[in-house]
């Protein structure tokens, strides 16, 4: 029996005071199409043995396509030791500890994660994680507006992930924050600097700088960071942490470095798993640390001078500041961050560099091969990291479906998000692909185009 402290009378009086007919009415804003209360494909009254068998049979029908889709979630090799260690009993319930200081092991792992991600981004401080990259971007925008104090306008380039932009809009639009889209240069695939310049001298709290951007292209981060600072705006780096093994760390962008670095930590040890759970990371300069949402672990000494770990800078969190808290991020993605810390520790700086370099090399090889297919054109002249945009001579949706029929996930269809690019797809190659895989991609593409 569930523990429900409210009596029927309590529930009635609460519903009456907000004018709702019944509890179901509280969920009216969820579209009916999204409510799937019934498992119609699973019969009633099955016992455990029958359900196990059914699920095994269904699982065997899952195909294992050769995956060339990135677009925010990346297939990387995860050493077996990562999840072997992360799922040990001591770590497996890595949920926010409520008697935090009694959980010294958990705090130490989080502290070491913070140290690693701050080092990778070249920033002063890190929190103990956020939910994911998309909500992380929204938190970075809120943080920048808090820190700027006077402006509530943030410039958000169209080269940032359309999915992230959609989430950011959902979270900040009701908080009287204006997000201004900056178009991209259709030749380079990067932020249109002339369009950006039109905002010079206006009231700007922050500029979001995606690196690599959603097209996989490298932005001129030094120029963009300096431009933001010249406007008295904060520079928010939206980055893929793996790429920072090779690319310049946000803390070194331009003459003063980015102010906030944020992104999705999935490439650091989290499997694709149909979209999650992943985790968001957030780092900042020392001067902004009190505006950073979420939990922060610090190292300290106890009464006897012995080192230990503690939750720090908590005065602005919800358990103390209630409705006026800096954020209401009450948990962190503890288990995913534990895996990320183990993943980074096992690969080391050199291992991360090799993964990043191999991914880049595979993308270059794939782009060259695919560019040789009749009618296929590589778009955008800027350097790319491990994703590239291809324009196809036929419907992108039809070509991708044709490739899927051959067991190849051929890319992310850009058509719905960037119709001005025509039949364009975003293709990713990581270190997991062999030369044979690349050949198979090109053969499937040729076949789908026939």
């Amino acid at each position: 029996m569930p523990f429900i402290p409210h009596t029927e009378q309590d529930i009635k009086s609460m519903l009456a005071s907000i004018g709702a007919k019944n509890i179901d009415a509280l969920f009216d804003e969820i579209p009916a199409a999204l409510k799937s209360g019934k498992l119609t494909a699973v019969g009633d009254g099955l016992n455990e043995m029958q359900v196990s068998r059914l699920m095994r049979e269904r699982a065997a029908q899952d195909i294992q396509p050769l995956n060339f889709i990135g677009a925010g979630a990346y297939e990387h090799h995860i050493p077996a030791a990562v999840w072997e260690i992360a799922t040990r009993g001591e770590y497996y319930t890595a949920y926010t500890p409520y008697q935090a200081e009694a959980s010294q092991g958990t705090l130490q792992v989080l502290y070491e994660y913070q140290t690693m991600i701050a080092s990778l981004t070249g920033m002063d401080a890190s929190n103990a994680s956020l939910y994911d990259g998309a909500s992380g971007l929204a938190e970075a925008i809120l943080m920048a507006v808090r820190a700027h104090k006077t402006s509530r306008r943030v410039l958000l380039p169209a080269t940032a992930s359309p999915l992230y932009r959609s989430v950011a809009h959902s979270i900040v639009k009701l908080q009287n924050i204006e997000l201004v889209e900056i178009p991209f240069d259709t030749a380079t695939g990067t932020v249109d600097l002339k369009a950006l310049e039109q905002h010079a001298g206006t009231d700007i709290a922050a500029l979001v700088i995606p690196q690599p951007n959603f097209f996989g292209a490298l932005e001129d981060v030094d120029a963009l960071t300096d431009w933001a600072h010249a406007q008295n705006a904060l520079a928010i780096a939206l980055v893929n942490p793996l790429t920072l093994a090779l690319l310049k760390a946000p803390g070194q962008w331009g003459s003063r470095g980015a102010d906030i670095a944020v992104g999705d930590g999935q490439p650091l040890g989290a499997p694709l798993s149909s979209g999650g759970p992943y985790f968001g990371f957030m780092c900042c300069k020392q001067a902004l640390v009190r505006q950073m949402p979420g939990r922060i672990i610090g190292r300290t000494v106890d009464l006897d001078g012995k080192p230990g770990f503690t939750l720090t800078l908590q005065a602005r969190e919800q358990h103390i500041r209630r409705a006026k808290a800096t954020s209401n991020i009450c948990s962190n993605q503890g288990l995913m961050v534990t895996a990320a810390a183990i993943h980074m520790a096992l690969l080391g700086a050199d291992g991360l560099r090799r993964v990043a370099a191999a991914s880049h090399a595979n993308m270059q090889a794939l782009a060259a091969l695919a560019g040789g297919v009749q009618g296929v054109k590589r778009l955008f002249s800027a350097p790319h990291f491990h994703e590239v945009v291809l324009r196809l001579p036929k419907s992108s949706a039809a070509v991708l479906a044709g490739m899927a029929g051959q067991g190849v996930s051929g890319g992310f269809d850009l058509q719905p998000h960037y119709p001005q690019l025509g039949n364009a797809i975003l293709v990713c190659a990581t270190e997991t692909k062999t030369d044979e895989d690349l050949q198979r991609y090109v053969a499937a593409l040729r076949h789908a185009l026939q």
Partner: protein
Amino acid sequence: MSNPSNLKYTASHEWVRSEADGTISIGITQHAQELLGDMVFVETPAVGRKLKAKEECAVVESVKAAADVYAPVAGEVTAVNSELDSAPEKINDAPYAAWMFKMKPDNAADVAALMDAAAYQAVVDSEAH
């Protein structure tokens, strides 16, 4: 420590000092700093910001809590005390010397209408019961 009689006070525990140039300096009272404990951070408003009376405009953060500071009257922020950035403990050491920000009041009569030291002491005493 008694509350200086040359200052004005608010029920939200700010003190207000009228300066010769027509601005007012604002800080938090002895009673407020005692309740909050050791200060670790002070967040001041942007210079030039226009404030309504009783608007939240600054935050004082101690080891155990973060509390809002309110504009005592309507007006514009003219200066902030940047010394507190690196030495917030000055609020604990000498609360009536550690001003946080200055304002130019829209209306001088608003300042005159604030509580005097005796009236503020009565507010503090009533909270103690």
